């Protein structure tokens, strides 16, 4: 076990834990943002540098600080390590620089992009970036590519996080796409525009932190904040069948995997569930998905802040208790304010 202090908060974690995961165990605002690291994908991380942190004390045995910011997703903790994330103004400045680099070639086409509203790069830019761009040169541009009939690749928007490559490597038996060329010319592509075609290939859409890989069946259908996310499931022979469906009115516009608080997929879903099951009758609906009230997706959505069924059970329990005393619950018993 190793004791690590991040922004003044101490936690004991098993040896070999990365600083990022230790921070996630503490939780809250001190968790560094991550664009390429994905806890569900092995060997992910280390590309984007947004998760950099400042190590002010290496360990108990060697208390020297690390000379420059380190990528927290790839650096493991040492006993007695002290880390600064949001408490270090220098580091925030450095991270703003990283965001600037990520945005060098990223187009400002958020009004057109389907990812807008649930885009990690948007969040990152808003929370850590600068207000204006200083980049004056021509951005690299690519033509849009159809990868199969269900996925669209906008290489312009790609930040080369390699998540989709790892998904294809680890989730599917073989992959047909990867990163071609090097340096500034590097691009995600398929070999001679091969079609990605296997049962779990649709997950590359969910892992993509930007709008580079998007669902063609949802293309320009609606902005995400006009749709309502609902958790649902079905008996699927290939995957768990636990998904999130996005309604607009009574129509299912899109099916995605469920995501956790860090925007990472909880359970992978198959292409059949994702692209072909777009009838309400295909699904057993569990209830509205919880969306952070700070997210634009929660705009105009009226999610009940408490679980009604749990409250009803609670009221029944209390009623049973009161039965002996012969006290009747009034009309307002279900009102949470009367609790």
């Amino acid at each position, binding site marked *: 076990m190793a004791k690590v202090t991040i922004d003044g908060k101490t936690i004991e974690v098993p040896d070999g834990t990365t600083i990022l995961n230790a921070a996630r165990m503490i939780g809250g*605002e001190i968790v560094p943002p991550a664009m390429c690291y994905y806890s569900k994908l092995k060997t992910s991380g280390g590309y984007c540098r947004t998760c950099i942190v400042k190590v002010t004390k290496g360990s108990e045995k060697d208390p020297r600080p690390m000379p420059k910011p380190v990528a927290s997703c790839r650096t493991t903790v040492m006993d007695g390590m002290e880390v600064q994330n*949001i*408490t270090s103004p220098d580091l*925030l400045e450095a991270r703003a620089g990283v965001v600037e680099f990520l945005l060098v070639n990223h187009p400002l*086409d*958020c*009004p*057109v992009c389907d990812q*807008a509203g649930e885009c990690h790069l948007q969040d990152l830019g808003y929370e850590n970036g600068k*207000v*204006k761009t200083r980049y004056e040169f021509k951005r690299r541009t690519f033509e849009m590519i159809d990868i199969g009939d269900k996925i669209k690749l906008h290489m312009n928007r790609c930040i080369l996080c390699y998540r989709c490559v790892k998904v294809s490597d680890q989730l599917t038996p073989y992959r047909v796409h990867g990163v071609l060329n090097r340096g500034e010319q590097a691009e995600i592509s398929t070999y001679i525009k091969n079609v990605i075609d296997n049962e779990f290939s649709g997950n590359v859409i969910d892992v993509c932190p930007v709008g580079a890989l998007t669902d063609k069946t949802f*293309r*320009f*259908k*609606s*902005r995400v*904040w*006009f749709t309502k996310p609902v958790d649902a499931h079905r008996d699927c022979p290939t995957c768990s069948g636990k998904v999130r469906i996005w309604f607009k009115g009574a129509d299912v516009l899109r099916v995605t995997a469920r995501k956790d608080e860090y925007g990472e997929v909880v359970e992978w879903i198959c292409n059949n569930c994702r692209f072909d099951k777009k009838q309400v009758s295909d699904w057993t609906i569990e209830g509205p998905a919880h969306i952070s009230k700070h997210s*634009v997706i929660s*705009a*105009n959505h009226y999610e009940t802040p408490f679980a009604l069924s749990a409250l009803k059970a609670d009221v029944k329990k209390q009623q049973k208790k009161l039965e002996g005393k012969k006290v009747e619950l009034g009309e307002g018993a279900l009102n949470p304010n009367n609790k």
Partner: protein
Amino acid sequence: MQLTNRSKVVVKKEMTLMERLYLPAILAGMWITIKHFLRKKATINYPEVKRPIAQVYRGMHVLKRDEKGAERCTACGLCAVACPAEAITMIAEERKAGEENLYREEKYAATYEINMLRCIFCGDCEEACPKEAIFLTDRIVPSEFLRNDFVYGKDKLVESVSQRVDVSVRQTKEVANFKKDNKQQHNINDLKQFFKNALIKH
């Protein structure tokens, strides 16, 4: 209970001779009426005469086209999400090859509707628009007989290529500078610093 000090106690006493004549009271009443003939009229003969309005008056919306006549709106939905009255709805569509001179971006609003009965003319849509597509103008929304007619579609909102709607008063240098002013963007950086300081103290 006395609510104001203007209440008067009503006394039912016998009227005097002067009061029973009623003539002085009638004359006093007439004088008040006649006084109004001499006053300046409170009304104007609209629409022949129009009242002066402020330069930044917020009236009927317009969806602008760019210099080449292509529609600027890309159906990004920011106006609709900014709208406090939920008056705006839209359906987007992908631009096809050959429509480049009709629509500016690869996505455009196939339908765009503003319910003028819902609209409160706050101008938030104009402020939210990243494409400078929607503007409020000095035109007044005319009255209609049917509620349905107040739902304005693209036919009423998009300006025609030949008859452009002038919104230059809303695009003055001051406005442009205000939009670019970093300090005005809800003081993003100050707020950030405030929260961070609070967190450090905590």
